[in-house]
């Protein structure tokens, strides 16, 4: 054994003397964590023959947990090898810190299940997705029951909250709905006009934009905007309430969180989305008109009359029905994921993401189904 076998960088902080059976380790100089410090693990092999190790300090100036860490390494190793330790020559503070480190024995290691293989992971994901459907159906059932209580005047909720929710969903969404609808109307007009101009039929931009926006695009865009804006907000609000045990507090009072939190939010969306859809449709038509008149030299009155003759009441009805369904689905996804939220900040983030994804997924599925249904019905 060679006691001089200490890395040169450490010689100002550590000295070793004594015999191979009874070595002494002396801490000296400055032991400051941020500067980088010796680790016992790298020199532990030198003490394989030791029966008793003496720990002490010589000219030890400033020290922090780096010194404690080093000494804890020595003590841990000595305990594992049943080597005696004499720490009487250590400063009082260091001895107390060492005692603190070993004051509480660590708990037995947790039994961890082996990581599932790829096939098992795929199966688990599929099962999770499958099990999500019964939960959704159950939630939809609870909302229906709550609606029954609301209609018969037995549901408990705060009218002031409801008014706030209406304002939040409707009027406050107008700027973003205006912007997106105008831009989408512009895109539709350009896409159509370039093709129609080839046949000298630019006037039919009015039909394309009018019917396209009112029947499909206004509802779809409004639904997607609200999924990102309102659905996410619902999931985050209700999820945070779940984290803070506010929902448990409601339940223990005998107040149904579905009546109090979910139904007002769903109703606010279902009531406001048709109005927003109608508004988005009008903005989209105005955008198409602006492009047709300014860029493609279609006359204003010509465009106006063509739009009037193309649009029928049934187009508005289809658009409003779709919008209402999308609004309900966005509210459903937001509230469902909020109520299913775990109890941490990370869980709130996951619920919010999931609410937006589920909202858009449900909108897309229902858009396809409704389009086919209306087609079959000849509307």
């Amino acid at each position, binding site marked *: 054994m060679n006691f001089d076998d200490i890395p040169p960088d450490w010689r100002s902080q550590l000295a070793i003397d004594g015999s191979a059976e009874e070595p002494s380790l002396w801490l000296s100089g400055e032991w*400051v964590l941020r500067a980088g*410090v010796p680790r016992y693990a790298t020199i532990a092999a030198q003490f394989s023959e030791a029966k008793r190790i003496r720990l002490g300090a010589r000219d030890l100036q400033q020290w922090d*947990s*780096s010194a404690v860490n080093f000494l804890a390494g020595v003590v841990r190793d000595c305990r594992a090898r049943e080597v005696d330790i004499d720490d009487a020559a250590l400063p009082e503070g*260091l001895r107390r810190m060492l005692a603190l480190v070993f004051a509480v024995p660590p708990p037995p290691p947790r039994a961890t299940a082996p990581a599932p293989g790829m096939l098992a992971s795929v199966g688990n994901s599929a099962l999770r997705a499958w099990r999500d459907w019964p939960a959704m159906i159950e939630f939809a059932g609870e909302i229906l029951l709550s609606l029954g209580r609301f209609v018969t005047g037995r549901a408990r909720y705060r009218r002031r909250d409801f008014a706030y929710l209406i304002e939040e969903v409707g009027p406050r969404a107008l700027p973003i709905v205006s912007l997106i609808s105008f831009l989408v109307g512009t895109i539709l007009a350009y896409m159509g006009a370039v093709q129609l101009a080839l046949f000298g039929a630019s006037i039919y931009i009015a039909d394309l934009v009018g019917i396209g926006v009112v029947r499909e695009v206004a509802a779809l865009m409004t639904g997607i905007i609200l999924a990102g804006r309102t659905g996410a907000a619902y999931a985050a609000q209700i999820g945070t309430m779940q984290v803070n045990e506010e929902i448990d507090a409601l339940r223990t009072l005998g107040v149904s969180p579905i009546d109090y939190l979910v139904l007002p939010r769903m109703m606010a969306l279902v009531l406001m989305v048709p109005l927003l859809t109608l508004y988005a449709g009008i903005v989209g038509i105005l955008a198409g008109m602006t492009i047709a008149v300014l860029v493609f030299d279609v006359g204003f009155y010509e465009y106006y009359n063509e739009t009037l003759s193309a649009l029928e009441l049934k187009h508005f009805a289809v658009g409003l029905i779709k919008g209402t369904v999308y609004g309900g689905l966005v509210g459903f996804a937001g509230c469902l994921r909020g109520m299913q939220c775990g109890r941490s*900040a990370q869980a709130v983030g996951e619920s919010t993401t999931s609410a937006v994804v589920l909202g858009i997924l449900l909108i897309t599925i229902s858009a396809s189904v409704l389009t086919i249904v209306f087609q079959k019905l000849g509307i």
Partner: protein
Amino acid sequence: MTTAAPHIEIRNLTMAYGDYVIQRDLNFTINRGDIFVIMGGSGCGKSTLLRQMIGLVHPAAGTVLYDGEDYWAASPEQQLKRQRGFGILFQAGALWSSLTLAENVALPLQEFTDLAPDLISEVVSLKLSLVGLGGFEDFYPSEISGGMKKRAGLARAMALDPGILFFDEPSAGLDPLSSRRLDDLILELRDSLGATVVLVTHELASIFAIANNSVFLDADTRTMIAYGDPRELAEHGVDKVRTFLKRGEA
């Protein structure tokens, strides 16, 4: 280990939310190695004062001096450097929920030191062992109890061996034994590492067990009405403070 050298000085500090003044003209000194308690009834501005001391909220007037340097007059870089010398235990632990306990404690070490990953993980285990959480490295905050979260928060606060430890209501929500253990730990850390400790609390048992200096903020007069060793204030302080420190029996 207490050496009477001013470490933190509060000078003419006024705290306000907009036009509403919470506390005005606060002046006191915390010495190096003190265990200093900020006490007062609920809503008197204790936590707000703490937040102004740790640089989270700007005071309406006055300032805080650390080792004679004006914190609020310093550049943002200097303020950050100063903040790295603070260890802060927030009321509910404030552990990052997406990280394990070991990752929570390791983050300050990874960000602000050049230590090798092996040494960091050793130091992290040491800090967790110091607060009695050795072996819980891989647990997430959601898997441990409230008292354990507080202790893990303390391990994180101690990660960089700070010169000043701030505690916001450390005993709130803890059973008497856990509370006592945390008090002992705070005393041990002060005695062993020589840190200065600033506590916001109204747990009388803790105040008498560990504090050697204190200030009392009064919600009615909106300023400090007592400053000194809480044991002396309990005997010879003004009526309001004695009543507070003797649970209404003075």
